[in-house]
């Protein structure tokens, strides 16, 4: 009898952690799915993905704080993220791969500087809080995270299903051909540039949505939440899970955040300071990225034949 209630109590203690891990994994899974569309399926080397994470989050919370109804704010956030994807794409998608990488990273850093400095707009480094969250008046506080989890997983499934449908459609076929060799779809009459823009826009909008979801979970957004490292979290998720595999991306997100949370547990046992634990985590991530790319670039679920990563 004692054993049962004891283990039930233990479960209650762990449950919030599990909910947290699943919540963050869903958010990052959505974020990474957007990148997977751009890189895995279209071959666009976008190192500035975090910018759209930020645009979605900031737009929604700021609009909401200024009195805009929540639903509209959310739509605006996602739409603006997609629109900025379009803006970024117009001048840069004609550049070659390496230049695109540099320019996109510059873009996300400049955006972060703007977020930091234009305090009249974004409250600068102090961040934004106090905005509404969906149904926050209806759901009791202690269950709110569970509600979010159910909501976010539902959204994740919807996005996953949509992307899968897209990638198996003729539209997806054109993207895949662009990924490998632009001249072929071009010679067959496809407007390659326009498809790249569409891919970037959609991927950015998805990232924006993820940003909105992150804002609701954290109840606070600040420029520090949107450093370039977040882009590379998404990168490692999609590479680990298998480039161009949406299923793999979701699994990758889960693995990454379980790892992060797991190391938080360990840090209580190991005599390392917090900054060292953080650094250790990132060293593992960096090594993992290197080793994956060197020896198993198809990740867990990727297909070797489908890889556009080595000649």
């Amino acid at each position, binding site marked *: 009898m004692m054993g049962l209630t004891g283990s039930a109590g233990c479960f209650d203690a762990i449950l919030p952690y599990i909910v947290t891990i699943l919540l963050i994994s869903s958010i990052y899974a959505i974020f990474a799915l957007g990148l997977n569309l751009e890189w895995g399926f279209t071959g666009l*080397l976008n*190192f500035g993905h975090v910018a759209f994470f930020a645009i979605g989050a900031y737009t929604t919370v700021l609009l909401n704080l200024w009195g805009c109804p929540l639903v509209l704010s959310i739509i605006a956030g996602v739409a603006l993220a997609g629109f900025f994807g379009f803006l970024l794409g117009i*001048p*840069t998608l004609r*550049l070659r*791969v*390496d*230049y695109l*990488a*540099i*320019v996109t*990273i*510059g*873009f996300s*850093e*400049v955006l972060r*500087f703007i977020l*930091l*400095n234009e305090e009249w707009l974004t409250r600068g480094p102090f961040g934004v809080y106090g905005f509404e969250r969906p149904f926050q008046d209806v759901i009791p506080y202690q269950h709110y995270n569970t509600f979010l989890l159910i909501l976010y997983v539902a959204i994740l499934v919807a996005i996953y299903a949509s992307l899968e449908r897209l990638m198996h459609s003729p539209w997806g076929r054109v993207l895949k051909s662009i990924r490998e060799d632009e001249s072929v779809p071009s010679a067959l009459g496809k407007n390659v540039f326009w498809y790249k823009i569409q891919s970037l826009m959609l991927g950015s909008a998805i990232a924006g949505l993820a940003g909105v979801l992150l804002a609701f979970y954290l109840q606070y957004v600040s420029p520090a939440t949107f450093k370039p*490292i977040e882009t*590379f979290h998404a*990168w490692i998720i999609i*590479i680990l899970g298998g480039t161009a595999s949406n299923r793999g991306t979701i699994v990758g997100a889960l693995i990454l955040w379980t790892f992060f949370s797991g190391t938080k547990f360990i840090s209580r046992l190991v005599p390392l*300071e917090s*900054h*060292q634990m*953080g*650094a*250790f985590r*990132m*060293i593992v*991530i*960096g*090594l*993992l*990225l*290197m080793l994956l*790319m*060197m020896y198993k*670039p198809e990740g867990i679920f990727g297909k070797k034949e489908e890889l*556009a*990563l*080595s*000649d």
Partner: protein
Amino acid sequence: MQLIINGLVIGSIIALTAIGLSMIYKTLNFVNFAHGDFVAFAAYIALLTNVAFGMNLAVAFAVAILATVALGVVVEKLVWMPMRRKNATQTTLIIISIGLALVLRNILIFVWGGDTQSYNIPVRRGFDFFGAVITPNQILVIVTAFFLMFLLHYLLSRTKIGKAMRALSDNVDLARISGIDTDRVILRTWVIGLGLAAAGGVLYGLVTAIRPSMGWFLLLPMFAAVILGGIGNPYGTIAGGMVIGLSQELSTAVLPTEYKFAVSFIVMTIVLLIKPEGIFGWVR
């Protein structure tokens, strides 16, 4: 005037460190995102030598360069060379370099923490110069940087190694057929490029606070300098670096200081869109 001095200082640092990035870019055909962190690594090794072991700055300088070059050689043997054998694509190498950047930077955080540090050297007063102040450190940076760049010029134009490097950077396949041992030349490119970058890193530590992210922050201006000067053109990179450094500092006259890096980004993007071969391509 003060801005011009600051611009010259940071410009020479950018120029010095970016040369390596440019040369590697051209020879190995990929963007090494870890380059900035090698620069930071050098600064930290100098810090270690100077503060922990109490050596003077000149010794620290030498040790930092040696250590950074050694690290670069190890990475070349363990990572880049096997990838070349496998014919890895440019994108693969870029992503690997991102991973490497993460590892390096976080090793620095792990060992030294995220706080700012500085060398243990006497603080000296600056001189008055046309109404602005220039410190001895700043003078040291500019002089050393230019001295090294001059050495590089000598190396590239007079010696056999230099000629081989230029041949390789012009056309890899042709160089290989002409009997040049590409692996050796690539190794030498790393050595020289990272050596210069390390020197730049130590000098950088003289004029700014040493933090783990210092290298990453230098990366965008370095890219801008490389592109401005034309990839693979060391002299163009030097010109580009000076221009970027000056424009960054001068921009603070009209823009808030935090937007300095936005300047390099904007300059770089404009150049890429209009004349991707670089503006200073003719500087040879």
